[in-house]
């Protein structure tokens, strides 16, 4: 064991004065293992989504409360949850999954305002915020608040009503949790939802732990199932293993180990003044360090 560790981690005559962990054949093994890890994770997620999946807990009630808290902090009036705007948000989400797009305007040119008016809301002003793949409600609202255009919608004094749809489905071949937030003000008295209202028939939120009663507005349920839509008022998923956390842990541990081995290897070779044919350890360390920073910037949640 001692010999193996020395051979693998430290420069020694047995490994031609270069830690075996840094030999080209070992580097190739890392690439193959990482590729295997990628495909393995995808396969296992597909087969056993309850074990290996994306932890998500986004609820309409929380989004509404958090949005209104942000407004209240600025002395603005609370927005009322509006059935028609929630229907518009649901239609928009469904359209995005059906036509596989991530945009405010559909490939056929449908605008958010079309969904608002077709849902029966007569707006004087209206707005839309979109988010996908966030893991919790506060993450969504905080991200919107750090983006000026989204923040402008949240804190616009002219809005009176708000509607939401939170939907899980497949977008561009990727499992996606969409959040659609619609704002509006109307010159007519609008229907105010007393509770968060799921707007498609046949979609139960009970399995997801949401006790809100279902109200059907007559949209055929097959449209829902066809597009893998699982919920409209909340998306709650608690897999045993959360893919983003697990992936990041493995990647950063691997990078940390590589940087550590490079530092030890470089230090010993420099101290013993060994001349060898190999890449520059300092350059590799700088490269992996830069890569670590870049990877820290990757986030799953995206706004539009």
């Amino acid at each position, binding site marked *: 064991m001692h010999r193996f560790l020395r051979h693998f981690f430290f420069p020694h005559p047995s490994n031609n004065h270069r830690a075996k962990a840094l030999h080209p054949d070992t580097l190739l093994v890392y*690439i193959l293992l990482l590729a295997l890890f990628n495909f393995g994770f995808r396969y296992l997620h597909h087969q056993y989504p309850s074990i290996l999946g994306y932890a998500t807990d986004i609820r309409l009630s929380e989004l509404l409360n958090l949005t209104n808290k942000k407004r209240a902090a600025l002395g603005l009036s609370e927005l009322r949850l509006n059935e028609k705007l929630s229907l518009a948000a649901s239609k928009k989400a469904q359209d995005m999954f059906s036509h596989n797009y991530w945009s405010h305007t559909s490939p056929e040119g449908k605008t958010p305002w079309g969904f608002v008016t077709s849902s029966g809301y007569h707006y004087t002003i209206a707005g839309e915020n979109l988010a996908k793949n966030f893991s919790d409600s506060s993450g969504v609202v905080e991200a919107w608040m750090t983006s000026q255009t989204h923040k402008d919608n949240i804190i616009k004094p002219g809005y009176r009503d708000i509607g939401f749809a939170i939907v899980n489905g497949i977008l561009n071949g990727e499992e996606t949790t969409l959040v659609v937030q619609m704002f509006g003000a109307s010159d007519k008295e609008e229907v105010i939802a007393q509770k968060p209202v799921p707007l498609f028939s046949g979609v139960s939120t009970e399995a997801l732990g949401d006790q809100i009663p279902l109200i059907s507005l007559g949209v055929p349920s097959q449209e829902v199932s066809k597009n893998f839509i699982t919920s409209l008022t909340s998306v709650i998923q608690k897999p045993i293993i959360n893919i983003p956390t697990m992936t990041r842990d493995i990647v950063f541990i691997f990078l940390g180990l590589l940087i550590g081995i490079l530092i030890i290897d470089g230090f010993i070779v420099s101290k013993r003044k060994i001349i060898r044919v190999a890449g520059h350890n300092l*350059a590799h360390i700088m490269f992996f360090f830069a890569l670590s920073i870049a990877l820290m910037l990757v986030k799953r949640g995206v706004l539009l």
Partner: protein
Amino acid sequence: MKKRMVSYINFTALTIILSSTVFLFFLVRDNKSMQILIGVLLSVLYATWGIIHHAMAGDLHPKVVVEYLLVGAIAVTLIVTVVWM
């Protein structure tokens, strides 16, 4: 002395390459495809830098070229892994 100077210049160039690609990576943080593209660019630039650096130092060997290419490939694999998680 001249060799040390060349090394300083090379490492300054590497620092500029790495910091600017990380900055580019930050700029496209909402676009996964662009992040992967910039990750590939980062790796290609790094491998090119390594080859030029060792050629200038006079110790370029096929084994060294393979090492830089593999290090670049590891970076691309890691970026794809994290970006598409």
